[in-house]
């Protein structure tokens, strides 16, 4: 769609930071807290969600004319579940170790409210191209958030990052970080950091606007 080029860029970029599904919308907390005890798990979960979100957004957007309003949510869930099944079996075949590690959380992508939210609020109302671009942005934003949380927890809780040894053999691990409380603590601190940065940016923008007003 050549007419909406700048629009498409905006739709992609908003998911990365401003409307980040985790840091701004605080959606998809279940996989966020459950599988981020290492960066590899976070990447795998992020990748699986990426595939499911982009594929379902594409399908929902292309079928939107034929989906009756009354049963749209259940239709979205069926579409999402189809792709979750695809990724579930693919992971089982290709990366059995990671599939075992993630366990029940791969099928649980079906109930990730972030994915359903994108179908309801975006894909079902926009063209295929925009829907896919929005899904790409959101999926990358989600992946980024998962990776940030997983990295902090793996580095502090295990002394490694993506399996790479960072501190040598004498590292004293922070046991709490790979346990559930560590997930909550790290997520809280990351949310704090995000809103602090957002606030700072807003203040900066306001200052710039004021200066412009004074200048003119």
């Amino acid at each position, binding site marked *: 769609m050549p007419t909406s080029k700048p629009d498409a860029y905006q739709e992609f970029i908003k998911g990365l930071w401003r409307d980040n599904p985790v840091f701004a919308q605080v959606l998809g907390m279940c996989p966020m807290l459950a599988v981020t005890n290492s960066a590899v798990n976070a990447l795998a979960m992020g990748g699986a969600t990426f595939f499911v979100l982009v594929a379902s957004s594409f399908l929902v957007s292309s079928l939107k004319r034929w989906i009756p309003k009354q049963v749209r949510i259940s239709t979205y869930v069926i579409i999402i579940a189809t792709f979750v099944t695809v990724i579930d079996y693919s992971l089982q075949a290709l990366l059995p170790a990671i599939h075992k590690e993630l366990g029940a959380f791969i099928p649980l992508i079906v109930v990730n409210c972030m994915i359903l939210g994108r179908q309801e609020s975006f894909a079902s109302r926009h063209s295929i191209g925009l829907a896919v671009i929005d899904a790409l942005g959101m999926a990358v934003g989600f992946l980024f958030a998962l990776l940030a949380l997983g990295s902090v927890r793996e580095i502090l809780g295990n*002394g490694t990052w993506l399996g790479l040894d960072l*501190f040598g*053999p*004498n*590292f*004293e691990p*922070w*046991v*709490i*970080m790979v*346990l559930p*409380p560590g997930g909550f*603590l790290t997520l809280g601190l990351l949310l*704090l950091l995000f809103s602090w940065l957002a606030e700072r940016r807003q203040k900066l923008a306001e200052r710039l606007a004021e200066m412009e007003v004074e200048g003119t």
Partner: protein
Amino acid sequence: MKRPDPKLLVQPAPLLKQPLTTSMAMRDVLIALAPATLAGVWMFGLGALLILLASIAGAVATEWVLLPDDERRAQLANGSAIVTGLLLGLTLPPALPLWMAFLGGVVSIGLGKIIWGGLGYNLFNPALVGRAFLLAAFPVAMTTWSAQTGPTGFFEVAASNLAAPFMHIDFDGVSSATPLNLMKFQHQSTALWDLMIGRTSGCIGETSGLLLILGGLFLAFRRDLDWRIPASILIAVAAFTSLLVLIDAERYPGPLFSVFSGSLLIGAFYMASDPVTSPLTPKGAWIFGTGVGLLVVLIRVFGGFPEGVMYAILLMNAATPLIDRYTQPRVFGKGLKSPRGGHE
């Protein structure tokens, strides 16, 4: 017309002001803790002093960094960060690496106080939040107890105290079990007099029971703490353990041992009685203290941990808003029904 000496002074309430301020209360706590602190440093050596300094430094530095510029000076001057850091340090084992003590101070103030909105708004006792974090993050370091060095080894700082941040800790060979560990895992009691004067291993500030009681009484007489809270905790512990002893004197520790061992005294007098995180009403104070006492004995005797004072106080901290709500006194002149602000 302004008269120099009015016969009738008309002014809004409050007419009688209590001279007690936050900084005075904090100073009283520091005075009350001084004997037990000095005893702890004397018994565990220079390393203990360094741990106390590290946790105080962590607490004060975090307060400095996280407070807004205009509140910084006033908040730091009232000394609450120093008290939090000192209380945390007193509940740490003497062989802990200094950087962990510093981190505990940071977590105490950051997660335990500032994030809730600062002094007076926190739900949980900040020092215990820091300690709970350390115990969950470094379970081995937090439960390795070194023996007392005594005056001869005062200047010997243990190698584990100086372990580099994030690095593995080599604990010196001399580790010794605390009285509660001995009781729980080897079924061995400790002489009561040793418990009272603190000739046992344990956290830096928890061992000398008599000095802790002395400081606690000072605070109670200065009205810095509600005497009902420590009293009800100690009564509940003594009563519950007496009951257990009646059932089976061989298996369960007696009331005197239970009161003087572990961190019960420092917890009851200095942590549970924190006015911010304990109920305001007298009835609520009794409920709170009894709850803490019962939980302590439950965790110690029937739980997996040898010591449960920290979790008992944190759990009852969580119940404090509820207790406050249900023990609201009736407003004078209002009916007997609905004391909790119903619509009737």
